[in-house]
C-alpha cells in the first residue's frame, strides 16, 4: 500500500475495486466502515455483489475482465469535465499526452458497452473520486488475477496521478496483499529478478555488492517464475524443486498440469507445517515450525514490519524454516551460522536500504513502516510525499483494454470466477485444521443466481457439476443474488471441490499472475 491502513478511515472518497474486503481483509474493511460513518463516499466495483456493496454509496457490477475499460472510461470523463489536477500532472508526471489521447477513445457509450456500467454511474465515480479532498483506491486480487493484471494496476495508478490523489494523507493506491507476508517475501528477494530490497540481479554494481556481502559468485541472469519452473520440470530443464510453505498443487491453476510437472522432478522437497497434496508427491518432507513457535518478523500490507515472539516450543521434531535451510546450506558446502532471527535481521539491514534502520530492538511495540533507511528514521507512513516518485517523475501508461484469455461460447456458456470466503484462508491447510473454523464452513460450494438454478432445476444444497476445458468438479449449489445470471463463483479453499481444477493457467505476460478471476464454464445438475 502507498498509504497506511489507518489512513483509510480519514478518506473522503474510497474507490474499492476487485477486493472483497470484508471477507479477505476484515480489519481493512473496519476502516472502510469507519470512513463511511465519518461521511466518506464509498464506491464498490465488483462483478459479485459482495457484502461491502450493501453499505456502499454506489455499487457497480462491471463485466468480468473489463476493469481496464472501466478505469479508462472514468479517466475519460475526468478529463472531459476538467476535473484533473493539472498542477500535479505538470509538476510530477510524464506521458500525460499519450494517456489523454488513448482514453479519448473510452467514451461513456463505449465504456458502458464494454463494462455494463451505466453512464450516470461512471459520472458519479469520476466526480466523487476526482473532487474528493482525499480520495483513496483500494484493490486486491480482483484486479491482479487476470491476463491483464499488470495493466489493470497501472490503470489505477494513472487514475491516482490524473487527480493528484497520491502522496498525501488518506490518498494513494492501496493493494491489499492476500497472504500475511506477501509483502515480506517480496521485500526479502523471494522473486527471480531481484535481491532483497528490489535490487536487480542483472545490474553489475548491485550484483557485485551482494557477491561481496555473501562471499559467493552470483548468477547475472534473472531466474524462473513459477509457471516457467513448471514448464522447466515438464521439459526436463529443471530437475529439483524446493518448496517451502506452499501447496502449488492447490494454489496454482490447472491442477492436472501442475501434478504432471511435479511428478517429473528428480528431487521434490516440501517443507511445511501440514501434510498436503504437494507433500504427497515429494521425495522428502521437512516439518517446519509455525508462527507461534518461532521468533521473527512479518511485513504487512501497509509495509509495517512487526515482531512475532516464540510462544511455545515447536511440535514434535519440527524446526524453524531458517534453521532447516541453514543446516542444508552447511551440508551443501555454503556455510551459514546464524544464532537467531535477530542476527539475520542485522544482515538484512546491511544489504536492504528500505530496512536499513530496522532491528529487533526497534520493532518492539508497534513495529516500523519501511522505508526506514537508518537508525534514527521513524519509518514512512505514506509513500511519494509531495508527488515524489522513485523514478523521479510518475509515468502515465496508455493502456488499451484487452479481453480475458478465455471467453464464454456455446459449449462453455457461463463465466466462472474464484475467490475467498471469510472463514477460510488460502488453500485451507491452516483454517481447515482449526476445529471452530471448520465447523463454520465445512465444505465448498458454488454460488449461482436464482435464474440459473431455475433453468437447471437445482435447489439450494443440491450438487452441481462444473466443467471447463481443464477439468470437472462437483460442488453444492448456493443460490444467491450475489452473482449475476450467467456467472458462477467458487471459493478456492476446498480440495474436494477444488476451484483450481477448473481455472485457466493463461497468465499475465509480465508478472505471470494466472487468470483465476475469469474463465468459461459449463454447468449441469450432478447426476
Amino acid at each position, binding site marked *: 500500500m502507498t498509504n497506511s491502513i489507518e489512513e483509510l478511515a480519514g478518506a473522503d472518497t474510497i474507490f474499492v475495486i476487485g477486493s472483497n474486503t470484508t471477507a479477505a481483509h476484515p480489519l481493512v474493511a473496519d476502516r472502510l466502515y469507519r470512513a463511511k460513518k465519518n461521511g466518506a463516499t464509498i464506491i464498490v466495483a465488483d462483478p459479485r455483489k459482495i457484502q461491502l456493496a450493501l453499505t456502499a454509496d454506489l455499487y457497480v457490477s462491471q463485466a468480468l475482465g473489463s476493469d481496464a475499460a472501466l478505469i479508462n472510461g472514468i479517466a475519460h470523463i475526468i478529463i472531459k469535465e476538467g476535473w484533473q489536477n493539472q498542477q500535479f500532472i505538470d509538476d510530477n508526471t510524464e506521458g500525460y499526452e499519450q494517456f489523454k489521447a488513448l482514453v479519448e477513445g473510452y467514451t461513456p457509450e463505449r465504456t458502458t458497452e464494454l463494462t455494463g456500467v451505466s453512464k450516470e454511474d461512471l459520472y458519479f465515480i469520476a466526480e466523487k473520486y476526482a473532487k474528493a479532498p482525499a480520495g483513496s483506491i483500494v484493490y486486491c486480487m480482483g484486479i491482479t488475477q487476470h491476463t491483464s493484471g499488470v495493466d489493470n494496476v497501472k490503470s489505477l495508478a494513472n487514475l491516482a496521478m490524473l487527480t493528484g490523489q497520491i502522496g498525501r494523507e488518506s490518498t494513494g493506491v492501496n493493494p491489499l496483499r492476500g497472504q*500475511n507476508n506477501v509483502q515480506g517475501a517480496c521485500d526479502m528477494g523471494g522473486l527471480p529478478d531481484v535481491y532483497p530490497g528490489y535490487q536487480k540481479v542483472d545490474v553489475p554494481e548491485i550484483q557485485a555488492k551482494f557477491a561481496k556481502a555473501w562471499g559467493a559468485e552470483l548468477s547475472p541472469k534473472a531466474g524462473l517464475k513459477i509457471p516457467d519452473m513448471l514448464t522447466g520440470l515438464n521439459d526436463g530443464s529443471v530437475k529439483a524443486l524446493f518448496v*517451502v510453505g506452499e501447496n502449488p498443487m492447490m494454489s496454482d491453476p490447472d491442477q492436472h498440469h501442475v501434478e504432471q510437472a511435479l511428478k517429473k522432478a528428480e528431487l521434490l522437497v516440501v517443507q511445511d507445517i501440514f501434510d498436503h497434496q504437494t507433500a504427497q508427491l515429494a521425495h522428502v518432507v521437512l516439518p517446519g515450525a509455525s508462527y507461534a513457535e518461532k521468533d521473527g518478523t512479518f511485513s*504487512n500490507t501497509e509495509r509495517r514490519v512487526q515482531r512475532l515472539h516464540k510462544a511455545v516450543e515447536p511440535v514434535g*521434531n519440527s524446526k524453524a524454516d531458517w534453521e532447516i*535451510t541453514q543446516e542444508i546450506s552447511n551440508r551443501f558446502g555454503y556455510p551459514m551460522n546464524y544464532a537467531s532471527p535477530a542476527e539475520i535481521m542485522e544482515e538484512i539491514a546491511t544489504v536492504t536500504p528500505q530496512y536499513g534502520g530496522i532491528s529487533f530492538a526497534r520493532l518492539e511495540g508497534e513495529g516500523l513502516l519501511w522505508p526506514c533507511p537508518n537508525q534514527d528514521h521513524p519509518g514512512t507512513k505514506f509513500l511519494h510525499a509531495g508527488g515524489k516518485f522513485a523514478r523521479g517523475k510518475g509515468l502515465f501508461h496508455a493502456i488499451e483494454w484487452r479481453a480475458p484469455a478465455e471467453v464464454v461460447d456455446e459449449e462453455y456458456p457461463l463465466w466462472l470466477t474464484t475467490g475467498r470466503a471469510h472463514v477460510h484462508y488460502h488453500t485451507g491447510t491452516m483454517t481447515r485444521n482449526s476445529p471452530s473454523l471448520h465447523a463454520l464452513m465445512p465444505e465448498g460450494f458454488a454460488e449461482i443466481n436464482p435464474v440459473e438454478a431455475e433453468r437447471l432445476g437445482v435447489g439450494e444444497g443440491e450438487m452441481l457439476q462444473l466443467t471447463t476445458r481443464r477439468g470437472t468438479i462437483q460442488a453444492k449449489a448456493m443460490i444467491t443474488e450475489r452473482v449475476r445470471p450467467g456467472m458462477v463463483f467458487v471459493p478456492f479453499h476446498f480440495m474436494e471441490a477444488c476451484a483450481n481444477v477448473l481455472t485457466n493457467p493463461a497468465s499475465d505476460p509480465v508478472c505471470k499472475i494466472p487468470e483465476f478471476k475469469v474463465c468459461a464454464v459449463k454447468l449441469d445438475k450432478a447426476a
Partner: protein
Amino acid sequence: MDYKSTLSVCPYCGCGCSFYLETIDGKLVGTKPSATSPVNNGKLCVKGWKVHEFVQSPRRLTNPLLRKNGELVEVSWDEALDYVAAGLKQIKADHGPDSIAFLASAKITNEDNYVLQKFARAGVGTNNVDHCARL
C-alpha cells in the same frame, strides 16, 4: 500452572493484526487481540480469534519424511538433511545450478525467506526463486 501471554502476529491475511497468544504449561489455549496495535486496535476477525487452534493440531507434521520404496517414511533429521544436500549437489554437478528451483513463501517470516533466497543465490548459484504472491 504456568500461564504466559506472548505477543505475536496473525499468519492469515495481509492486515497483520497482532495479538497475545495465551499458553498454560506450554499448551496454547487462547488468543487476545492487542489493544494497542495501530493495525487492529483490540479487534480481530473470526480467523484471528481462532488462530491458536491449528498450531498444536495432531495433524501437524512432526518428523522428517523420506520416500523409500515408494512410501514416505519417518527418518532422522540427519538422514533427511544429508539426502537433500547430497541430492541438490548431484543435480547441480550434473545439470548446472539453474536446474534447481526454489519456492519461497508468503507464509514464512522475513528471516526465513531471506535465508532461503540467500541459499539459492549464493549457495546453489541460481536466481530461480519465486513465491505464490500472485495467487
